[in-house]
């Protein structure tokens, strides 16, 4: 079994990063042996789609459980579609969080813990919900990528999704992105009318 934990640094002694899609690192741990692999999250600075891309990256690693502070609806749905349990509200050191999960002290969430676009911008002032108006910064590039089935396992055995699972996942992402686009277009129309 593999557990992915969002992390502020590439070590078991690092703190859990409260953001999922935009965390700096992931620590992928085997809870039995506490062997781990540290992954750089290349989506941390993406201007959009970070949650989905990060969730795909984690799914490609054959992870069964994610421990994090918060997880938005896009990432949550992508992880759930890949059969990955999501535990939010996790804090403290990575190794303590993994121990707590092993001891049955942490339970998977039945729904996302925050709205879309949580964690955009820098520092602690993170906008929550679809109100995309604060501290977002521009010109950050768009490192989204689809990354299906391209995991680089380092000593662990990734279990990539099969073709049908990938198609289902992509279709559900199309639906989510379509909803986001509708909301953005509505807000644009409102603003253009002077609202």
């Amino acid at each position: 079994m593999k557990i992915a934990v969002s992390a502020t640094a590439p070590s078991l002694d690092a703190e859990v990063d409260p953001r999922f899609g935009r965390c700096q690192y992931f620590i992928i741990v085997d809870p039995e042996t506490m062997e781990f692999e540290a992954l750089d999250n290349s989506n941390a600075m993406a201007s959009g789609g970070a949650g989905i891309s990060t969730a795909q990256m984690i799914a490609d690693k054959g992870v069964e459980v994610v421990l994090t502070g918060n997880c938005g609806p896009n990432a949550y749905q992508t992880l759930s579609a890949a059969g990955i349990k999501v535990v939010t509200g996790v804090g403290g050191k990575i190794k303590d969080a993994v121990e707590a999960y092993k001891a049955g002290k942490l339970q998977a969430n039945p729904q996302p813990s925050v709205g879309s676009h949580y964690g955009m911008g820098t520092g602690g002032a993170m906008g929550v919900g679809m109100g995309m108006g604060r501290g977002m910064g521009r010109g950050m590039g768009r490192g989204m990528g689809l990354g299906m089935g391209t995991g680089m396992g380092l000593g662990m055995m990734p279990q990539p999704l099969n073709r049908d699972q990938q198609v289902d996942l992509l279709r559900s992402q199309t639906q989510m992105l379509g909803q986001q686009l509708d909301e953005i277009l509505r807000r644009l129309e409102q603003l253009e009318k002077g609202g």
Partner: protein
Amino acid sequence: MTREQELDFLRSEAEGINEQLERIDARIKELEAE
């Protein structure tokens, strides 16, 4: 954030989502053709 900045941001987000939708669509077609 001013109204103009929000408009710029939303336009760039919409563009990004459209690009992502195109990539997803292409990937679905690729997978279905396999």
